[in-house]
């Protein structure tokens, strides 16, 4: 019996080392596969009743659930802050620094008013002032339109994000089904779990998620607000619908949410995180904030300049009270209403050469404006530009920090789940030697049996 045991032990060793070699091979083959978690062949000594030897108890994936959750949370944060950085960079591009800015156009306008105060009856100076006013209005309008376009593009991006989220949720639900089936039938679900992990990582880039694994191997996915996105093998329907809020261009903005059984839309709520959260935050907060400040600048400028221009004491070149210089309801439609340079009310009397009203216009440049909290036009614009720049800078810093944290979290996950080729090749040698030794054992058992048989033959 003992001699036959030697053969059995050798055989079990050959089988076990083959399995281990196969697992090592799979690890090596997937060294560059994103989201792949290394596998380990678990071996256990065979019981005496089963003839000693070794048996394979399973092929285990080396995964730390806490590290996975951390990587996923950091993926959301890094993707969100990266998207926010890119979008705020686009907002910032609407406020260039230098003479091409609204500030530059403001300075040109008041410099032209200053020239008019020196040459109040000069038609060239008057024409120049109208042209500077038009350039200023155009620059304010252009910036407001840039912001409106950016908001619309961000809205479209949010709609696209919702589509991608919906597709990923479907994929996770499908993989849940496959994993549950494979687990129930005792099959190998490791590759499916890796695919699901990849899908969840991709999903986390779009929205912040929390996952809970069930006993049957399926994973439930929840949004940051607690809203269920995947429950077992069922995925929620995420949709983008035209909402009640309107954008700067007057068209409806989209609401993103989950379709309820009654067909209504349950909003994802608050900041959903990820790139979708970044798009919504920039669309609903950053862009409208900059646009509101620009509007305030435009309306204050319009009112202040028009008040001087239409002052009952003011007189144009024909001795008449002036008409408003600027028209429009805000930054988007600010225009120059006055077309005749003679209509600029530079004087405060019918006396030729009077420049008193032109001086009042120039004085607006350094006068604190009530609606702008006492700031001058130039300082208010400077503060607006600095605010937009600080937001972009903050987003850039945040994105850099989040990328570093993601790298750190991914490195920690890799430290547990990643493939190390040196380890794998050492394992290959180890398992190869063990395989060779088991083969030797079988050969030895064979020889011993042959010796015994020779004794019987004699």
């Amino acid at each position: 019996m003992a001699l036959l045991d030697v053969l059995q032990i050798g055989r079990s060793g050959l089988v076990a080392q083959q399995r281990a070699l196969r697992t090592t091979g799979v690890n090596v083959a997937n060294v560059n596969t994103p989201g792949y978690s290394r596998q380990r062949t678990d071996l256990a000594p065979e019981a005496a009743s089963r003839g000693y030897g070794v048996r394979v108890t399973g092929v285990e994936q080396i995964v730390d659930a806490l590290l996975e959750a951390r990587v996923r949370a950091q993926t959301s944060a890094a993707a969100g802050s990266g998207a926010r950085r890119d979008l705020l960079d686009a907002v910032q591009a609407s406020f260039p620094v230098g003479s091409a800015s609204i500030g530059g156009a403001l300075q040109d306008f008041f410099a032209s008013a200053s020239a008019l105060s020196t040459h109040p009856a000069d038609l060239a100076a008057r024409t120049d002032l109208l042209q500077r006013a038009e350039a200023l209005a155009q620059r304010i309008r252009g910036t407001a339109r840039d912001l409106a376009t950016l908001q619309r593009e961000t809205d479209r991006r949010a709609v696209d994000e919702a589509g991608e989220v919906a597709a990923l949720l479907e994929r996770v639900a499908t993989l849940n089904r496959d994993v549950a089936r494979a687990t129930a039938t005792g099959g190998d679900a490791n590759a499916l779990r890796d695919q699901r992990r990849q899908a969840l990582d991709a999903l986390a880039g779009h929205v912040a998620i929390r996952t809970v694994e069930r006993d049957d191997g399926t994973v439930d996915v929840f949004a940051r607000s607690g809203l269920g996105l995947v429950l077992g093998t069922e995925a929620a329907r995420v949709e983008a619908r035209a909402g009640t809020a309107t954008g700067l261009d007057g068209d409806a903005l989209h609401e993103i949410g989950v379709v309820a059984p009654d067909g209504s839309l349950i909003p994802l709520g608050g900041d959903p995180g990820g790139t979708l959260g970044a798009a919504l935050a920039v669309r609903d907060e950053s862009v409208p904030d900059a646009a509101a400040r620009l509007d305030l600048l435009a309306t204050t400028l319009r009112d202040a300049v028009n008040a001087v221009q239409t002052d009952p004491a003011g007189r144009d070149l024909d001795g008449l009270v002036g008409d408003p210089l600027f028209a429009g309801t805000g930054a988007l439609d600010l225009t120059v209403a006055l077309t005749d340079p003679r209509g600029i009310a530079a004087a405060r009397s019918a006396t030729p050469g009077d420049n008193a009203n032109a001086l009042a216009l120039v004085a607006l440049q350094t006068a604190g404006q009530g609606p702008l909290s006492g700031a001058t036009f130039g300082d208010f614009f400077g503060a607006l530009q600095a605010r937009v720049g600080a937001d972009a800078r903050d987003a850039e810093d945040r994105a850099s920090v989040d990328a570093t944290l993601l790298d750190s979290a991914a490195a920690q996950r890799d430290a547990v789940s990643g493939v190390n080729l040196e380890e794998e090749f050492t394992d290959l040698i180890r398992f190869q030697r063990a395989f060779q030794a088991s083969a030797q054992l079988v050969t030895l058992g064979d020889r011993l049996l042959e010796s015994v048989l020779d004794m019987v033959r004699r």
Partner: protein
Amino acid sequence: MIARVTQSTMIRDLLGDVRRLERRMADAQAALTSGKRLRTASDDPTGAALAERLRGESRDLAALRETVSFATAVLGAQDEVLAQADGILARARELAAQQSGSFASTASRQAAAEEVAELERALLSLGNTTIGGRAIFGGLASGTAPFAQLDDPGFDPLNPYSGPTDPFVVRTADDTTLRLTTRGDQVFGAAIAALDGLRQTLEGGASPEASLDALDQAAEVMRAERASVGGRARRASERADEIRAGLTRAEVQLGAVEDADFAAVVTELTQLQTALQAALQAGNVLQESILDHFRL
């Protein structure tokens, strides 16, 4: 500290480092090619606001420089005109002195009257002097001359001025203005009346002794105005110097805020290039593996 280093960790770290270095190099190169440290507001938000204010200050100073330059030209022209007017009054006084007393004949007085009439015309013409078509003793208004001419019908020597009554004022700083004009009749009124009185006295063949005082008083008014013009011209000149200094200061400050420090950027770029080469060299080392040392 990562206990177990894997291939993907090493590659991610290397890629991350290379990307960071490349980003910083691109930033340094942009600073070099544009010459600007401040290219977007996020480069330095506070600096961007400061640069905006300095640019505004600089643009305003440039506008004020134009105004002050115009003021200097107007006041300079007034000074020249007043000098000429002073000469006219001096000649008129000389004539009045010559024709005073009982020695001058009627014919000589009438001849003198003709010269005085020319002097009066010249003075009125000086009162109508323009610069760029704008009367420098008529509120810098353009169009109708502020003083009537001697030969105009109904010429009133006591009221020859019909120009603006308000002075022309320009802004030379945020809170400072400079008066460029004085009402023409306040400058020339007494002189015209004195010359006209002298002319009429001489035409009548009488001794113009009584005109001497009037001429002296008119010359005094003229000199006082010339002193005032000189004072204002000096203020304009001082302000021009201040503006020039202010412009230089604003440009230097603006340069400090938004211009790149070339020496620092070039040094940084060199360091970054060295670091990038080292990182890429590390990438070559990564290619080495256990396969190079074991034979399976």
